[in-house]
């Protein structure tokens, strides 16, 4: 299949370990943030979101942390599995009579068995 993210940073983790993927955003006015997972040849898949009135949100095996002071997001994946291998993007939602998502650069996650 196609290779998405030829020049993106790569995080390699051992199966069963925890993964942390970091992201910086640009707009101080952004109040909604989303993490997406993109597998080769597919569209981005929603993982988890967080609103700016929160600093932490947990899902199934995933946790998102938001630090508005330094405009930083992180995605933590517990007990990483081979199926987690993909490109991960953070996106900030910018409202201006309609929503547009501004995506970060993306990180390739490789899970070693």
């Amino acid at each position, binding site marked *: 299949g196609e290779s998405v993210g030829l020049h993106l940073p790569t995080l390699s983790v051992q199966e069963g370990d925890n993964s942390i993927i970091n992201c910086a955003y640009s707009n101080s006015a952004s109040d909604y943030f989303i993490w997406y997972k993109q597998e080769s040849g597919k569209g981005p898949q929603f993982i988890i979101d967080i609103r700016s009135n929160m600093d932490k949100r947990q899902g199934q095996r995933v946790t998102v942390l938001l630090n508005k002071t330094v405009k930083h997001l992180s995605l933590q994946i517990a007990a990483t599995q081979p199926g987690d291998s993909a490109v991960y993007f953070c996106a900030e939602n910018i409202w201006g009579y309609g929503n*547009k998502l501004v995506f970060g650069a993306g990180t390739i996650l490789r899970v070693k068995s």
Partner: protein
Amino acid sequence: DAGVTQSPTHLIKTRGQQVTLRCSPKSGHDTVSWYQQALGQGPQFIFQYYEEEERQRGNFPDRFSGHQFPNYSSELNVNALLLGDSALYLCASSDRGHRQETQYFGPGTRLLVL
């Protein structure tokens, strides 16, 4: 519950031609956004449609235009294709187009311009 669907999956065109890509939103959604994703990069916002009107537009030339139909489906048209238009074109849908509404993506259309 049907997700976002896009057609065609792949398309090959030559420079100067025109192309139309199609998108059907997720069931219950009425807002459609289009994104362009070049290889190795994150998606870039093209525009968003709600109630058959373009509400917000990214930094794309007028060669990129769109339409939304009464059934909420949408088309993206690109005229006078350039080699640089080769990319994965993604459609995303959301509900009501309100602030902080999650956008869900389709599988994309891979366009190759020769």
